[in-house]
């Protein structure tokens, strides 16, 4: 009744191929955007920002990135945490001034440094650097697939964490090996550092999320996305019909790592402000993002958001109910939380193996016929 295409006529090709062909869907999408951009910034406070919105938005970007690689192109990756670390350290180097030491004429080491780059472009450049690293670690995908590729990307995860723990240049030779985001501004508004306003950091991340989702959605709808999906569904058949596996796989690694790198950069600079590679970007981060896309739905941009929301919001919600409202001891609540989240994941996946996105699709199908299903 509410949700149907009847009476919604397209009179041109662009209208026919738009992302949201159903009017109700389109208005809902605009409503969400307007709410996110025009309402939330006015009501958001520090708690909502740091406990809910920032992790949700940042993990959503990481999930979109991994979804492109795993969901659309079918290449399993366990290196997400490592690639996020590349993004974080790259953005740190760019925002503090990328430096290089060269032997001068008198035999002394001389430090040459770029001026610090604006935080917005630092984040983008961090994504570009991660894309290059992603392509390097994607090379084995040309020879191996499935579990073997998962192991190769797992090696990337451990190698990158080791590298950023060892390589002093990456953390500007700080004694503790931690990187700290200094205060940086855009148009005079602080985006990183301790004294930021909630609305500013929220909007900054939101811009990246909307940009990433828009880009990813359109890439996956276009020729490139079709090539990825052809490789995913059957690589030999794809090769026979003219898809170049080298370019398709490596472009998936590049695009995926670009998004993951951006999320890593935001995770470090905007959300946490200080990170240590082993703790923030360990193997558990890779698994967390993988869980997000599996629960949300492989091969779906909406699924990336749903999965990120599920994994970020549910623990916080449970904690607030169990400890805040029911007054349980914190350790008991933490253990119960693990049990509930774990059980829900299992139940969800048994009930709907294709994730939350599929539930959403089914709901839409039902709504289309409602109230007169035939």
């Amino acid at each position, binding site marked *: 009744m509410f949700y149907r295409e009847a009476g919604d006529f397209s009179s041109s090709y662009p209208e026919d191929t738009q992302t949201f062909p159903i009017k109700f869907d389109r208005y809902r999408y605009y409503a969400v955007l307007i709410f996110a951009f025009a309402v939330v910034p006015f009501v958001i406070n520090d*708690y909502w920002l740091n406990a809910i919105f920032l992790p949700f938005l940042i993990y959503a970007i990481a999930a979109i990135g991994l979804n492109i690689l795993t969901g659309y192109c079918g290449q399993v990756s366990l290196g997400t945490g490592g690639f996020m670390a590349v993004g974080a350290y790259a953005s740190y180097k760019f925002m503090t001034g990328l430096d290089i030491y060269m032997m001068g004429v008198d035999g002394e080491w001389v430090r040459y440094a770029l001026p610090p780059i604006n935080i917005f472009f630092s984040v983008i450049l961090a994504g570009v650097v991660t894309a290059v690293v992603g392509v390097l670690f994607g090379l084995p995908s040309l020879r191996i697939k499935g579990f073997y590729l998962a192991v190769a990307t797992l090696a990337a995860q451990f190698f990158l964490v080791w590298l950023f723990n060892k390589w002093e240049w990456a953390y500007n030779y700080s*004694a*503790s090996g931690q990187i700290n985001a200094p205060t940086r501004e855009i148009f005079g508004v602080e985006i990183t550092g301790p004294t930021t306003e909630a609305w500013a950091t929220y909007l900054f991340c939101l811009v990246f999320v909307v940009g990433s989702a828009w880009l990813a959605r359109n890439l996956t709808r276009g020729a490139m996305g079709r090539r990825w999906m052809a490789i995913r569904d059957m690589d030999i058949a794809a090769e026979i019909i003219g898809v170049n596996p080298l370019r398709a796989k490596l472009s998936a690694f590049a695009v995926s790592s670009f998004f993951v790198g951006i999320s890593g950069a935001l995770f470090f600079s905007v959300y946490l402000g200080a990170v240590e590679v082993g*703790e923030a970007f*360990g193997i558990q981060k890779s698994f967390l993002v993988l869980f997000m896309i599996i629960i949300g739905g492989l091969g779906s941009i909406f699924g990336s958001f749903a999965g990120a929301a599920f994994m970020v919001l549910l623990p916080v919600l449970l904690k607030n109910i169990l400890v805040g409202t029911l007054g349980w001891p*914190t350790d008991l609540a*933490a253990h119960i939380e693990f049990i509930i989240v774990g059980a829900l994941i299992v139940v969800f996946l048994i009930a709907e193996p294709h994730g939350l996105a599929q539930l959403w699709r089914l709901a839409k199908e039902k709504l289309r016929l409602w109230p007169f299903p035939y």
Partner: protein
Amino acid sequence: MKLKLATMALAGVMAAAPVMAELVFPSLSYRTGPYAANGIPFADGYADYFTLLNERDGGIGGVPIKMIECETGYNTEKGVECYESTKGEGALVYQPLSTGITYQLIPKATADGIPVHSMGYGRTSAKNGKVFSNIFNYPATYWDGASIAVKHIMDVEGGNIEGKKIALVYHNSAYGKEPIRTLEELAKKHGFELTLLPVDHPGQEQKSQWLQIRREKPDYVLMWGWGVMNQVAIQEAANIRFPMDKFIGIWWSGSENDVLPVGDGANGYKALALANPGGDYPVYDDLKAYVYDKGMAAGAGDQAGTVLYNRGMYAALLAAEAAAKAQELAGTPDITPAMMRDGMEALEITEARMTELGLPDFGPAFTVSCENHGGDGFGKVQQWNAATGKWELITDWIESDKDVITPLIMEDSAAYAAENNIEERCN
């Protein structure tokens, strides 16, 4: 989320109405996760001491204490959530209890005007109060610890350790890397040779490090470990028959949890002590009467008298003393975080006061000042006696080598100040 909104709205209403004053002390504990075995006793000690004050004295200066516990699982992201959810309740001081969360809170809490007490951990150069206005790490810092350990070795060796080999087995993280700078300086000063052996989180795999120790035969091994890494290291040391009395851990590597699993093999293992071990103090009589016997002990109530329980209690005691000082300075029992900060900066712990509190000769006497947020840097050395199952103190208070540490602190804090455009205070 609706629920949260509702509770927040309710909190808003309640904040508007006149409420009974309370002193809020958040406890960012970790009773779950990889370091839970060490997090539980600390959290219990912290909670029990505040319960004691509430039950026996009716709080601090007549104002009851409200302790909000929040589970971090030693995870920085959860720590952020805990910080944000408790700071609105008027939190007076944070004890982050993890190096990651401490680094996180140093700029944030400073901007919010809330003091942080990272007792014997965190960023060492926060000792320089001129730069770090809201961060306190008294009574001693990691660099003090490194120096105290080396001094102890010198005492044992009769004052000269020239040409000796000392290995540092450390947790490969910000925490474990902390003492390296100081040890390098000390190596230059005293002429010993330093070997660095990093162990990756969580530290269950240390075969190669101990193989290297067996091959290179260092005269002493120092350890900066935490959680399961301690137990594994002590077990490995016992396996290669490294002389245990030449193996010295930092104060976070010296609890019962670390040595008990190794059994007799751990006999003679040494660790530094921030405060005395054991439950043989008058304060325990009060704890028994007012807390344990009333069934109000935190957690399972089985941690009393352990090293980390004592440390948690000591942290609560120092916080309570600072709050009392703040009440005295501000002239009002109902203090704000800013007043609490002033109280911490004016804190003075004397031997007489510790005796009065039921803990004679328990921790060092020290004074905090605007310039010095790290106390005077005293520590003892304790040794494990496997037969009696007790830590025994084998030295008196040892003072750290300020000639080496002070310039390092100045250098590191100046770098932080330059990076963050901080102007020096206290001038």
